[in-house]
């Protein structure tokens, strides 16, 4: 397979995953806005989580709900807006058209066509839930087409690696921006504000139901942190993503008969979510742990790009 093709598959999946994550973040923000008295700075934290706050501030300065939602969903100046990343995903899919099935291509193309229509104009608040659901549904269609029609070969592995690098990064960012509400602080424990924040974290990874199923009704910061970092059953946790990265890189290793530096880095990334538990992490510094994880995930991504010759 061409190095460029591997890169195209990797980025196609990353961008689709990113569109889905952006939709979840907007939904979590909207939920807080509706259930709490004005928390405009919640939107700032959401922009930070999506790593698109700087561009926003440059363009608009002041953070308002309406502008933040528009920036996250459809602004062409925001390279991470849903419309930008879906267009990028489609460009990459066109580039790797020979490596994906007709079903996958059509699912990506249809996602682009549908969202281009739905996001042609600023989304009125009353339509927001439906549009956000549409974004996730379209990404799910692509995932379904990939799962159901693609050979389990290197093309599939690179697409999966892109998905899990992006997802690990996204979950880690959510934790990075919100880590302070997960710390056992004497002042705020159990306050209403914290409860909202905790629920928002779960919502931004679509895990309210899964959390309840695992831990019952009480939302507690220690359990949330454990769930999002260490629980290997939770498909958006750091441990789950790191595990999948190790698996998919191992398939490539077996398929190609070649071991690269990225294999070692993935093992180490996985190790840091397996070697300790939530109490240790909170004690030694949750923030530092997340920062360390983000750095490792970034270096792993870069190493994969170079090991498999995505670029010249």
């Amino acid at each position, binding site marked *: *397979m*061409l*190095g*460029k*093709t*591997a890169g195209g598959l990797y980025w196609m999946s990353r961008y689709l995953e990113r569109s889905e994550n952006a939709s979840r973040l907007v939904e979590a923000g909207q939920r807080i806005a509706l259930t709490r008295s004005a928390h405009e700075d919640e939107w700032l934290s959401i922009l930070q989580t999506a790593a698109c706050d700087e561009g926003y501030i440059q363009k608009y300065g002041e953070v308002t709900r309406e502008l933040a939602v528009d920036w996250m969903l459809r602004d062409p100046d925001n390279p991470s807006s849903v419309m930008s990343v879906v*267009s990028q995903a489609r*460009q990459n899919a*066109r*580039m790797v*058209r*020979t490596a994906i099935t*007709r079903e996958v*291509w*059509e699912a990506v*193309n*249809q996602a682009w*066509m549908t969202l281009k229509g739905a996001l042609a104009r600023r989304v009125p608040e009353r339509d927001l839930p439906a549009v956000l659901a549409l974004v996730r549904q379209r990404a799910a269609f692509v995932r379904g087409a990939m799962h159901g029609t693609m050979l389990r070969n*290197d093309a599939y592995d*690179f697409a999966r690696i892109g998905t899990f690098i992006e997802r690990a990064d996204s979950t880690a960012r959510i934790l990075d921006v919100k880590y302070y509400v997960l710390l056992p602080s004497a002042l705020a424990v159990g306050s209403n504000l914290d409860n909202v924040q905790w629920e928002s974290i779960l919502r931004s990874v679509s895990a309210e139901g899964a959390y309840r199923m695992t831990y019952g009704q009480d939302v507690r910061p220690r359990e949330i942190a454990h769930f999002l970092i260490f629980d290997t059953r939770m498909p958006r946790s750091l441990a789950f993503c790191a595990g999948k990265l190790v698996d998919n890189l191992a398939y490539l290793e077996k398929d*190609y008969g*070649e071991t690269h530096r990225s294999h070692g880095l993935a093992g180490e990334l996985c190790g840091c979510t397996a070697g300790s538990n939530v109490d240790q992490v909170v004690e030694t510094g949750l923030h530092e742990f997340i920062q360390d994880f983000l750095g490792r995930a970034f270096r792993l991504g870069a190493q994969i790009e170079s090991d*498999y*010759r995505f670029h*010249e």
Partner: protein
Amino acid sequence: MNNPSGYDEMWGTAQTQSMGDMAQSQAFTRPPYQNLDTWIQGEDPARLKKKQREAEEIFRLTGITFNVYGRAEADERLIPFDIIPRIISGREWSKLSRGIEQRVRAINAFLHDIYHRQEIIRAGRLPIEMVAQNAAFLPQMIGVTPPGGVYTHIVGVDLVRTGDDDFYVLEDNARTPSGVSYMLENRETMLQMFPELFSQNRVQPVSTYPKNLHRSLCASAPAGADSNPVVAVLTPGIYNSAYYEHAFLADKMGVELVEGHDLRVVDGRVCMRTTRGYKAIDVLYRRVDDDFLDPLNFRPDSTLGIPGIFDVFRSGGITIANAPGTGVADDKAIYSYMPDIVEFYTGEKAILQNVPTWRCGEPDALAYVLDNLADIVVKEVHGSGGYGMLIGPTASKKEIAAFRDKLLAKPENYIAQPTLSLSTVPILTKAGLAPRHVDLRPYVLVSPEGVTITPGGLTRVALKKGSLVVNSSQGGGTKDTWVLEE
């Protein structure tokens, strides 16, 4: 519904059309179309119109779009598709295909000669200026014989029809002819929408094209390649207007689709960068123009090409399909010599007719053309896509006067032809079936093993009433083209 101005492939000539006096209904339908006619009569017109819209949806979803140069992704356009097929009988096709094969063999022999001994010039059958002053002549190709001796592996021969037995070659495309993906997708779409039509009519399949293309390219591999040569398709990239087709062909052949920056010359071979290192390519089906192929040998500012690929080619290390320099065989001035060229290299009269052509560089011809500008068509020798031409009968006095000045300034840059009364085939319009002018581009594959012609080709149709311009860039559409079993 009649087409008094000429020949309709479904309803025949003006005479046969007027034989029946049942207004609107066709008293006469040419035999290849009779099954189709019966089917159309039995169809609900509303259902047909719905199918027409459905076809468009299918094309959009599949992504069969072409990009408009220099624009953003919002400008991906669909080429309009008309659901009424164009039908050619098996007998008509066998004659055409014999003529096409003869012509394509002559073109390859001509290219070999032009880049070697130039016998045709020595024999006085072709003036030396036709080659020496031809912008498409590549001096770098002098003395170079491509692997297997084939210069142009993929050829499109554009044909028009004016009567039951009258076919003319309008032009040859010996560089990088495009449109074959439309031929294939048009058929796929028709099969999906109207399976019953294919049970009622015995239509020769076109779906073998990608397999034949792959086989033909493999057979043209350099002598050193193993029995399973590595083939790749070279595209200028996703912004190119024909990108869809490049990806489509690579996909259907099961080969890599590469861009210049995926390739480099390593140890005297052209190699592609894979996830496991550099891998040598034996045959490159390039959809990049000569000029851009190799910045070291041709245009130095090209970012689409591969530095040094031409040197590898010259030393026999790779097959480039089509070979560089084939354009010298298909410009409009050389076209006018094609009957001589065919005869010179095959020893036979050309089976397919040329449209009579005046070379404006010749004083007598120029005088005639200037006197008759209002009745004829004048084209630029190197023009394409229907641009830069004058269609006398439909042009205004002002346009003719302006063109006269251009012609006088550089007469050798132009050729002129009589206005042909192109045949029509009905299309589905809001008001029912209506005749529109068409042409036909069959696709021809050439390898050392022989010539393969896919039955049919791409029918382009001028959607505007009375228009003779079928180019997709100027409001043309396409149709599925059927060749019936004999």
